């Protein structure tokens, strides 16, 4: 009503048409631009630029409906009585102003072109979307403190330092250098022998000693274990499914192993990308584990209603798109799920077009087709056949009923009742109690002394029962003896908790054993008979009980273990024959487990892709137009028709990403490599090369590295060499602004410098690299290093992860395992990674929880870390192991012991002061106390 009145008022008040520049813009300028202008675009609405204003905001677009002021959200918000909705929030516009805007819209909202004062930024005008710049070819000579460098990295670094009137620090001492390089490349410390040898070579020829060291370490398999961890952080790898149930994902690890191998083999990075996206077509099945590393709801956790199913599917595809965007392109594509990206040239349509590439990928195990997997499969089949034979033989040796020995508890899968052979033509099985509901039996077998199942319907045996619930083709009396197992071929009594079945053989049989089950397939455990008796009829028609539940172990529904065969209740002769079979059974079962483990990988399955639609505000209940696969429209023009087969989609996507023409791919990866060595990348936001990311400190260096990376055939190891052999990398980490503060301090400083450097003031974050930025070891490195120093590290590679907790997945609290053995003293990358559950000691050291991607680990310092590292059983036990090792290797002389402890843990002998300081401690409190302190010391925990 109010609106109508206003319109009437305006049409009489203003005769001439409203002029946008003269009448409308000043109102918007004064009242709206603050929140909907150049600086801020609340709710995505921008009113200072024609195109944006007419397009509208996130929620109500279009906000201006030409010719229809009363329908235009813009007018609604100016006139509403709802205080929470009213715009501007500070108070209503004057009626005149509202009238002007209303009239303007009713007149068709004429907005002349070319009058806007602001210009829409060109979102493509951004460094990382432009081709790699060539570095100009000729590099000027490198200015530095020591020998001239021929490494271009030093040139770029020095150029920037000079610009800021800074300079690089002197070279690091050899001890720091070997520690630094060894930790960097392998995540482990050098041994004392390696240190001594390096120091010796270093004095003779510094450059070649470093080169030899780097070459040696890049050949070590420890290298792949270290650098795979960086990658797994980014792709948020874990061995559980996440969310509330957080069940084990038992076949995730082949992907982890694939990544380790890829780094060790120096798989060219473009190939590494393609294998992870479409490895199923490249003989690298496990590699596509990349696509499905995220948390996912399992089918049983998803709601039965269709909306729940759609949301769950959308969330799971979203995780794939985010992973692809962040990991390879350094772009937060996921942001465009609900609306066009606020800052980067990524539209919501782009986002859904990316979804279409992976819309046929399901989170599931896939059979591996490597020769090893095929061999395991064949083996498993053999073992299973043998196991069936063993079980058959062992069935003869179950304890006799009524023998006095306790017989195993009833279970749903299979029960055997053995009795003294007896002649009969009729046998009755009576159920007296069940776990719940009416009893169900999927198969009843009766064996004669010749080992034949005489119950089988095919032998002509007749059946009758106390009454049945018939469900056609599922529960029928005939299924009781049809020789086929499982719930869907079973007999169901019609009485709660009770029922009987009777068999009549075609002729008298000498019977000795009855085998029966609820569900031999192991899926159902309800309706289980827990009290029963088996009777046979004599020729006079009298029934005699041959077996019942009275001598079985009391039924306990919580006890889910299947009974192991035992020797109790057997005669000496039987026991002798059963014993080897029991042993063989256990061995065969473990072989089957092993063989079945190596055949599958959680690497996704592929099917006909879902139809993908643009979703309004990301809501699966609001689908808009259909979308076909296409790469980000601002960065490429690759599109595919709707009918493109699933694998082809991923092929095309992989080729586009792993192309030298893609401006992001190489830059993003060389930056990750740089970050791995210096702690921070040239781009400080390694998974955001978009417009919100931080610009590179050294853009030309980044482009040089990216160009070199492509030129080398995408060799990651080549990049390591290039970086590690630079003088920038090999400089000291010390802050050289002060003279050494005291004699005690200077003793352990191998390199002193009196040069005054302004670095600490001008560049305290060391982004310009006027010194080497030292950093704390990551969680995994600390654990691995402690084990290496204590002498307990088990270098066994690959395979199923070892346990950190008492369970491998699940709902409730995870109790840490605090007894240590060879298996759990392997490197931490081989630990079974439970999503979200921080490892009890090292989780506090910023270990990612594998929920979202961790492109760069934060290094935080907390008292909980101190408590964990100082007091945990892990530290205490390893301190003891360390002390024992030192005593064994150094003999009884305390000075020699202390010296070796320092050499093993810190790669240097103690100073005289330190020796004097620690000797009384070792004397009074033992070597373990020193070892515990060393494990906690800053020198031990920091990359020098």
């Amino acid at each position, binding site marked *: 009503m109010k609106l109508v009145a206003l319109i009437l008022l305006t049409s009489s008040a203003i005769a001439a048409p409203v002029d946008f520049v003269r009448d409308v813009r000043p109102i918007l300028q004064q009242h709206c631009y603050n929140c909907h202008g150049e600086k801020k675009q609340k709710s995505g609405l921008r009113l200072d630029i024609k195109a944006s204003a007419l397009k509208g905001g996130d929620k109500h677009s279009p906000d201006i409906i030409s010719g229809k002021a009363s329908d235009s959200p813009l007018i609604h918000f100016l006139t509403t009585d709802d205080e929470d909705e009213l715009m501007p929030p500070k108070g209503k516009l004057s009626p005149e102003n509202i009238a002007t805007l209303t009239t303007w819209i009713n007149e068709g909202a004429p907005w002349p072109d070319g009058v806007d004062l602001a210009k829409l930024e060109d979102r493509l005008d951004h460094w990382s979307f432009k081709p790699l710049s060539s570095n100009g070819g000729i590099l000027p000579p490198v200015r530095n403190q020591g020998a001239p460098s021929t490494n271009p990295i030093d040139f770029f670094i020095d150029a920037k330092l000079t610009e800021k009137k800074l300079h690089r620090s002197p070279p690091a001492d050899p001890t720091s250098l070997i520690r630094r390089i060894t930790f960097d490349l392998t995540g482990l410390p050098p041994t004392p022998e390696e240190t001594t040898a390096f120091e010796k070579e270093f004095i003779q020829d510094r450059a070649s000693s470093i080169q030899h060291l780097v070459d040696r370490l890049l050949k070590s398999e420890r290298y792949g274990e270290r650098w795979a961890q960086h990658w797994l952080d980014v792709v948020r790898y874990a061995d559980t499914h996440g969310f509330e149930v957080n069940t084990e994902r038992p076949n995730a690890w082949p992907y982890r192993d694939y990544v380790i191998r890829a780094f060790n083999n120096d798989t060219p990075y473009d190939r590494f990308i393609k294998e992870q996206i479409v490895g199923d077509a490249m003989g690298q099945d496990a590699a596509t584990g990349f696509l499905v590393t995220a948390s996912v709801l399992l089918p049983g956790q998803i709601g039965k209603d269709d909306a729940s199913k759609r949301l769950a599917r959308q969330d799971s595809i979203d995780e794939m798109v985010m992973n692809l965007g962040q990991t390879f392109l350094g772009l937060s594509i996921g942001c465009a799920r609900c609306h066009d990206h606020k800052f980067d040239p990524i539209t919501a349509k782009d986002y859904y077009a990316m979804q279409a590439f992976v819309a046929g990928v399901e989170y599931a195990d896939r059979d591996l087709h490597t020769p090893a997997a095929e061999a395991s499969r064949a083996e498993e089949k053999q073992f299973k056949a043998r196991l069936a034979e063993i079980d058959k033989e062992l069935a003869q040796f179950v304890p006799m009923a009524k023998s006095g020995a306790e017989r195993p508890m009833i279970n749903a899968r299979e029960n055997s009742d053995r009795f003294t052979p007896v002649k009969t033509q009729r046998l009755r099985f009576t159920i007296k109690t069940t776990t719940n509901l009416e009893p169900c039996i999927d198969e009843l077998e009766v064996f004669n002394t010749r080992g034949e199942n005489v119950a089988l319907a095919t032998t002509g045996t007749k059946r009758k029962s106390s009454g049945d619930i018939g469900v056609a083709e599922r529960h029928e009396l005939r299924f009781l003896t049809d020789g086929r197992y499982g719930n869907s071929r079973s007999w169901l009594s019609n009485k709660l908790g009770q029922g009987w079945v009777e068999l009549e053989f075609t002729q008298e049989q000498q019977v000795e054993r009855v085998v029966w089950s609820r569900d031999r397939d192991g899926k159902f455990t309800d309706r289980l008979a827990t009290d029963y008796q088996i009777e046979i009829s004599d020729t006079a028609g009298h029934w005699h009980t041959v077996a019942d539940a009275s001598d079985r172990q009391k039924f306990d529904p919580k006890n889910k273990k299947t009974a192991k065969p035992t020797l109790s209740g057997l005669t000496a002769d039987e026991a002798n024959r059963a014993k080897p079979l029991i042993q063989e059974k256990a061995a065969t079962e473990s072989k089957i487990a092993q063989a079945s483990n190596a055949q599958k990988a959680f690497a996704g399955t592929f099917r006909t892709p879902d139809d993908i639609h643009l979703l309004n505000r990301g809501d699966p209940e609001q689908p808009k137009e259909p979308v076909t696969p296409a790469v980000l429209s601002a960065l490429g023009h690759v599109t595919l028709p709707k009918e493109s087969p699933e694998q082809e989609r991923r092929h095309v996507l992989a080729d586009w990403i792993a192309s030298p023409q893609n401006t992001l791919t190489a830059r993003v990866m060389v930056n990750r490599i740089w970050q791995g060595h210096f702690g921070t990348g040239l781009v400080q936001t390694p998974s955001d090369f978009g417009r919100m990311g931080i610009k590179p400190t050294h853009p030309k260096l980044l482009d040089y590295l990216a160009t070199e990376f492509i030129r080398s055939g995408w060799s990651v190891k080549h990049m390591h060499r290039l970086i590690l052999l630079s003088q920038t990398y090999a400089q000291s980490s010390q802050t050289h602004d002060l003279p050494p503060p005291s004699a005690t301090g200077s003793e352990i400083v191998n390199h002193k410098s009196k040069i005054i450097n302004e670095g600490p003031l001008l560049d305290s974050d060391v982004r310009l690299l006027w010194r080497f930025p030292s950093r704390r070891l990551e969680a995994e490195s600390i654990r691995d290093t402690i084990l290496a120093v204590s002498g307990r590290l088990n270098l066994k590679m690959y395979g199923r992860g070892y346990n950190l907790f008492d369970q491998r997945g699940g709902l409730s609290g995870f109790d840490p395992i605090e007894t240590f053995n060879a298996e759990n003293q392997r490197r931490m990358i081989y630990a079974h990674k439970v999503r979200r559950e921080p490892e009890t000691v090292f989780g506090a050291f910023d270990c990612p929880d594998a929920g979202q991607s961790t492109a760069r680990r934060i290094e935080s310092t907390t008292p909980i*870390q101190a408590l964990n590292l100082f007091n945990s059983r892990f530290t205490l036990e390893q301190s003891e192991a360390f002390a024992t090792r030192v005593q064994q290797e150094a003999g009884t002389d305390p000075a020699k012991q202390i010296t070796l402890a320092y050499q093993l843990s810190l790669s240097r002998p103690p100073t005289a002061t330190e020796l004097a300081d620690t000797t009384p401690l070792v004397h009074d409190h033992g070597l373990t106390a020193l070892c515990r302190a060393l494990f906690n010391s800053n020198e031990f925990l920091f990359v020098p």
Partner: protein
Amino acid sequence: MSYLSPAGHTLLDRRRFLSSSSTALGSIALTNMLGLDGLLAADRPIIDPARPYAPRQPHFPGKAKNVVVIFCAGAVSQLETWDYKPELIKWDDKPLPGGPAVTFQGPAGNLARPQYAFRQRGQTGKWVSDMIPHLAELTDDFAFVHSLTSKSNTHGPAENFLSTGFNLDGFPSLGAWTTYALGSENQDLPSYVAIPDPRGVPQNGANNWGPGFLPAAFQGTTMSSKAPVRHLAAPGVSPATDQAARTLLQRMNARHLEAHPGDGKLAARIASYELAARMQLSVPEISDLSTEPAHILKLYGADDTQNPDKAAFAKNCILARRLIEKGVRFVQLFNGAYASGGKLNWDGHNALKDQYDVHAPILDQPAAALIRDLKSRGLLDDTLVVWCTEFGRMPFFQKGAKGRDHNPDGFTCWMTGAGVKPGVSCGETDELGQKAVKDIHPLYDFNATILHLLGLDHERLTFEHNGVQRRLTNVEGHVIKQMLA
């Protein structure tokens, strides 16, 4: 501070620190320290690595300094507690016309009346159920919101959504955001404590108190009256040996720091060992409830020998009060454990009444006593108490069962204490309690309101992660002004 080493002492004394540029510590990255007093210049807190828990100023003066969140895992039915629907009595055992055929767990059955009697309470005369008589007595003090909605009807994603504002895994929890912003008033205790239910951890476990991509310093530390903080002492090491190792470590680190002047990270680690040493004393002290008088134990029901789960939860509530008393910023008190067919938490699918008869007494008296106790000690003046659950339940039973299915479209949570307007009820569900229909508030709004009460603008409290300025409320959220005093 005389118990600190010289290095730690220097670090913790800011004035001396800033004037000591000629000492070995002088050139610790100054940028780490500027803005130490909080959010004055920037919206984002600047964390001093040596004092991650140092108190920091909010964006604007907040009414609340500390928070206790009572988190009921498994989804408490709004219809059996705070959202009175007399119409449902009339409709009992009739089908819901036009209602959904299938909900989360399967086919829908008939509508079912509230399973407990309701009566009017206090001055406001608000109808609250007899299921929770002690809490009901406090009705006048609460600000209810009856029209909350969640993004998911599945416990895991929905608990994520309640605790972190996202239904995916891996985002920082409300407590992590709060302590990241504000630090803590007590440097000898963890700034953020999560207290699991005595029956077990909630459905989504550590994600409810995780740091996500915030620094690990801001993750919740779990402890309860049953299980203390881990690694407080070294098992099997004599006090003398323990002290000797500690002293040696201090000397090692001090020498190393002298040789590496200006490295703030090294100094921060030294300080962390000193904080840890103090925590080793203060944590056992705070968990020792033997000093609580008999009348307090009785008030909470901690002396209830007939109901050990209730007594254990009551002790957790007393622990929560003691932590708040000592200035711990954020305490999250869980009621209800993991998925268990409704046996151990509020997930009443099958036999709702029978199961709630067990769960309600465990929650009711202890939680009510906590609020009363905080109030009588004057702590409620600057402590916010929040009661929440991940979603509500359907007005109909599930087919063939006597329980209600998941319902994310309209459910109730409440707040009381600092800055909260007592006795208000915001928003409404429809007359059968199925969907929010008036003043609908996605959970974003509830979290935005909590931050507001702490003096934090949910749009300005951000952290850069992989290219996105992440917030607790994503790109949503409006403070529910009606709930504010």
